[in-house]
């Protein structure tokens, strides 16, 4: 069981060790916020269906307590994603950016990757100062503040203007849980300048069987005329839980396309935020979750329309089996200035088991009068008519179920644009759905 004084001790240790750190002040603010908010409970509306506190019944090692992980590049090989030979690979181990395990294939001048602390000191310090922690204005719970309190070993990624990145950015969050229960708190800030094109792929892996909790925050700043694709792949083991926050600020008129795929894990909470800070922004958010066992997945999304003429479309689809629990909370904010907003949202679910649960909630807060917003959600079982139609042509029931479920997932799968990645996810889905056969 971890309590507040454990966190306080560790926090003070971190601050004392690095009194000159340019991050010290933001950590301090983070800790004050954490101290005030505490860990969220189910009484907190934003955490109503996800009892994240119970994860802290485990005793975790703080990264500072253990010597650096002995993971080698060969260990990482086992978890690399398809397409990695063409990718810039950024590796975090136990929440810390590991330059020696990372690989950069884009030429200098197209991409800069620095330890966050270094960036906060050098020529990028204004960017860090302005944007690091901007998500705290949106997520005020203790979990988020906990990450900010312990920013240490984070990464800063910079894409200069007029660059079309030929090599995607793969970000691996690896927890080395071979010896201890691990609490990892990776932090990253990605700054994307104007007239750029970037593919980001983020994934999580745990090596070892001890309990592991990853509390990760990524903040992304997107400038004018940038096209950003973002893929989050979650295919962990049951001993791995996580809170994964992606906070995207579209500060210039830009295009964001994000897909979150969740197939496995313990308790998972995703915060996917897009803040439309410039007129004419466009964002497409997709989610696909296919869960079995006891996985608990909570997808919180937020599209905040600050400026006029923005377009957002959101489609999350899920298949839940066994005793899985799903949560979808989709919030759309339309601020008074954000006239002519177009914002759409859909969540569709298929429950394969009587013991599976889905809690789905759209949340629209509209303060402008000339907007088009819609939301819808469905919860159902496999379509009996379709199933019978296929069987009546000689297709076995189990194959028919698999076909229908795969077809259900297809429109999200099709949103994964890198071919190798799409093929990989499709294969994982096919394997999963053939396991789901009854």
């Amino acid at each position, binding site marked *: 069981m971890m309590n507040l004084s454990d966190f306080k001790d560790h926090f003070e240790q971190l601050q004392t060790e690095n009194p000159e750190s340019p991050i010290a002040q933001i950590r301090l603010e983070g800790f004050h916020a954490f101290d005030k908010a505490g860990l969220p409970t189910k009484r907190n509306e934003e955490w109503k269906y996800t009892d994240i506190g119970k994860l802290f019944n485990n005793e975790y090692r703080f990264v500072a307590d253990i010597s650096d992980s002995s993971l080698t590049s060969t260990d990482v090989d086992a978890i690399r994603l398809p397409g990695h030979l063409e990718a810039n690979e950024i590796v975090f181990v136990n929440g810390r950016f590991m330059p020696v395990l990372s690989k950069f294939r884009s030429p200098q001048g197209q991409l800069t990757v620095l330890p966050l602390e270094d960036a906060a000191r050098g020529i990028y310090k204004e960017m860090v100062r302005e944007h690091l922690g901007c998500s705290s204005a949106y997520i005020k719970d203790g979990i988020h503040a906990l990450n900010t309190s312990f920013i240490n070993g984070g990464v800063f990624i910079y894409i200069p203007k007029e660059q079309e990145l030929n090599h995607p950015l793969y970000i691996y969050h690896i927890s080395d849980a071979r010896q201890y229960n691990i609490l990892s708190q990776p932090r990253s800030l990605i700054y994307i300048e104007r007239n750029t094109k970037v593919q980001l792929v983020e994934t999580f892996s745990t090596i070892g069987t001890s309990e592991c909790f990853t509390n990760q925050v990524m903040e992304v700043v997107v400038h004018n005329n940038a096209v950003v694709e973002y893929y989050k792949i979650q295919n962990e083991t049951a001993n791995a839980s996580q809170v994964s926050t992606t906070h995207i600020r579209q500060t210039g008129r830009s295009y964001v396309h994000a897909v979150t795929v969740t197939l496995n894990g313990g308790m998972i909470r995703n915060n996917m935020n897009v803040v439309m800070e410039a007129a004419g922004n466009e964002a497409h958010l997709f989610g696909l979750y296919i869960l079995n066992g006891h996985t608990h997945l909570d997808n919180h999304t937020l599209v905040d329309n600050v400026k006029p003429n923005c377009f957002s479309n959101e489609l999350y689809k899920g298949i839940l089996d066994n005793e899985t629990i799903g949560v979808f909370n989709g919030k759309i904010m339309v601020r008074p200035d954000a006239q002519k907003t177009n914002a759409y949202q859909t969540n569709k679910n298929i429950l394969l088991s009587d013991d599976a649960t889905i809690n789905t909630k759209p949340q629209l807060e509209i303060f402008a009068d000339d907007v088009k917003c819609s939301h819808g959600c469905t919860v159902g079982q496999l379509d009996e008519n379709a199933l*019978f*139609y*296929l069987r009546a*042509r*000689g*297709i076995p029931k189990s194959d028919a179920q698999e*076909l229908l479920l795969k*077809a259900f997932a297809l429109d999200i799968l099709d949103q994964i644009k890198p071919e190798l990645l799409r093929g990989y996810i499709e294969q994982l889905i096919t394997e999963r759905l053939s396991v789901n056969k009854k």
Partner: protein
Amino acid sequence: MLSITNIHASIEGKQILNGINLSIQAGEIHAIMGPNGSGKSTLAAVLAGREQYEVTEGAVTFLQKDLLEMSPEDRAREGVFLAFQYPVEIPGVSTTNFIKAAVNEKRKYRGEEPLDAVSFMKLMKEKMAMLRIDQSLLSRSINEGFSGGEKKRNEIFQMAMLEPKLMILDEMDSGLDIDALRIVANGINKLRNENNAILIITHYQRLLDYLQPDFVHVLYNGRIVRSGTKELAMELEENGYDFIKEEANLITAE
């Protein structure tokens, strides 16, 4: 080929079929007519193996086998084909892949090798030409966004590909205009031969003008109340079902 003996069936506790007897030989076309709610589509669903319907009494043998013991997929592989009144739209499943899977399931059941891609395409092309089906229809998801006529033609196309022994056509004419009806009926006529049989379920005479049934049966309140030749269908077309209902109600009253 098919022998239905005293079939009783219900759905959610509601009795729909009340003792149907019907025997169909190879090479024959039978038509079942009757007013709405008489049990026509229930009979089709029971024969195809729809699980919501519970057969409470009676037997069905198909080619000397107990049909009711079989799963829907096995019935299809044995050669029963139900052309749906409302073909289901299945987004995300390609029509071609679906038909290929169906054809190969049937071959597997018979102990035959699956068709390779080339032979399958050849077979498809042949049947497409025969039924004048457009390639673009088959590259789409199953029935997705198809018009009523396209859906029915797709049913007939699947039928042509699977070469069933017993073709059950459930309200094949519903939702079709006169041109589409002619095309669909011509397609069906091309598929019939002395080794297969057709059971047509319909409200109206018009499909029967094209298909020329050997026998016409009138279903009312879950029973066949009258059987005859195609002249019976014309009589119904002229007089409606009222005289049948009156007759049947009189018998029940007695």
